[in-house]
């Protein structure tokens, strides 16, 4: 953040594109700025609207050389733009050097990337020393802009000023007058009492969800990564109940309360959240405790209190004769299940700080482990 911690004292901000570069069609410029603001909007309570006349909080100019603020641009290369910390007048404004060749892709200077960086300043972020962060001062053209996301450092920075976005809830998003619930503390990886909210595979990695965070364990790298859920999927709620990956569809389904979301990679799929009752659960089921997908059988198991349902992914329906008692079909799994997933032909059940490895063919528990055994503890 800037010295003195300047920040906006309101959550709804206006922006105005005062002039346009001739390098790109106007709609491409509009789209780049809109997308750049959206990147910040997704991880904060801030919202932005465009105005066409008068003074906006963020006034956006393209300019060359000296352009009225005594900090001249320098021709092609080197300085690409600059922006001012939040405040009245010139503060909050973003200027782009029109001696650059602005492009939609990375063949020239990508306008979206530079705009997203400059708007970070407009919101109160200073430069970051983290080379992976958007707020690192040196331009870094990402090869795959479709998969762009803010780095954890960017999210931490902007959320230190404005907090996280309002949580989604069955009653709809929190309104501007509602208070944001207190943030749960950051869980310690090797806390012997650590429990998980949900566990799922994702494209060969394993995700362990806890409150606002998740650990990402790749079998190729020894150390798990630790991230905010909102930094990957800004519209997902924290404190998930259950999650599973339907590998043949490349979709991870996440559950909270009576709703569920479908995510593919970093994209939350359109049309979600949906109600869990659309899957065929009776009205008495108000939340799912855990879910796992068996790749071999192409069936998903949903665990709710001491019962479970089996869901046929091919017919998209709950199978008849369910629910059944968990303890009857998974001998040894006696307590309520917090989270579950399948790996290497075994089912892993998490309950508090304990984890059971279950062989579905032998129908018995083969190992009792600590919940955080996957995190090198």
């Amino acid at each position, binding site marked *: 953040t800037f010295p003195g911690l300047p920040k906006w004292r309101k959550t709804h901000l206006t922006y105005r594109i005062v002039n346009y570069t001739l390098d790109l069609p106007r709609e491409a410029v509009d789209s780049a700025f809109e997308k750049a603001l959206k990147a910040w909007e997704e991880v904060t309570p801030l919202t932005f609207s465009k105005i066409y006349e008068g003074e906006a909080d963020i006034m956006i100019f393209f300019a060359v050389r000296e352009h009225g603020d005594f900090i001249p641009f320098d021709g092609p290369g080197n300085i690409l*733009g600059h922006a001012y910390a939040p405040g009245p007048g010139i503060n909050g404004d973003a200027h782009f050097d029109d001696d650059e060749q602005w492009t939609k892709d990375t063949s020239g200077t990508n306008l979206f990337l530079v705009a997203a960086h400059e708007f970070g300043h407009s919101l109160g972020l200073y430069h970051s020393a983290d080379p992976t962060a958007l707020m690192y001062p*040196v*331009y870094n053209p990402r090869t795959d802009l479709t998969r762009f996301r803010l780095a954890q450092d960017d999210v931490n920075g902007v959320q230190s000023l404005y907090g996280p976005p309002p949580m989604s809830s069955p009653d709809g998003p929190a309104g501007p007058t509602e208070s944001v619930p207190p943030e749960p503390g950051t869980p310690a990886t090797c806390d012997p009492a650590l429990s998980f909210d949900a566990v799922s595979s994702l494209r060969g990695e394993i995700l362990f969800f806890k409150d606002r965070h998740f650990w990402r364990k790749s079998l190729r790298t020894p150390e798990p990564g630790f991230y905010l859920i909102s930094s990957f999927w800004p519209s997902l709620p924290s404190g998930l109940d259950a999650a599973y990956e339907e590998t043949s569809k490349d979709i991870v389904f996440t559950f909270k309360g009576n709703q569920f979301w479908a995510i593919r990679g970093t994209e939350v799929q359109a049309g979600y959240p949906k109600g869990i009752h659309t899957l065929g659960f009776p009205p008495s089921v108000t939340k799912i405790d855990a879910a796992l997908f068996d790749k071999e059988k192409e069936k998903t198991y949903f665990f709710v209190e001491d019962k479970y349902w089996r869901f046929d992914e091919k017919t998209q329906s709950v199978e008849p004769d369910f629910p059944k008692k968990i303890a009857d079909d998974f001998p040894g799994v006696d307590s309520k299940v917090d989270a579950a997933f399948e790996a290497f032909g075994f089912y892993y059940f998490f309950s508090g700080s304990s984890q059971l490895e279950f062989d579905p063919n032998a129908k018995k528990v083969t190992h009792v482990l600590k919940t955080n055994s996957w995190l090198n503890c």
Partner: protein
Amino acid sequence: YPVDRAAEDKDSNMDLLQQYLENYYDLAKDVKQFVRRRDSGPVVKKIREMQKFLGLEVTGKLDPDTLAMIRKPRCGVPDVGQFT
């Protein structure tokens, strides 16, 4: 007379470094005269500060990696110091 290209390049690199440190690392104007003295304390300190911030090897010298970094396009907001 033939131009001494090596000396010219060196001067131009030093100018670039001086400008970079002034713009982004709050190098004081009165330190300017010392930039070309490689052992100048304030300049070495600023180079080290820059190298550390940008994630380069901290040598305190204008080495090739540092030179390459300061030639890259970047944001015009200073990395350190008071923002005006």
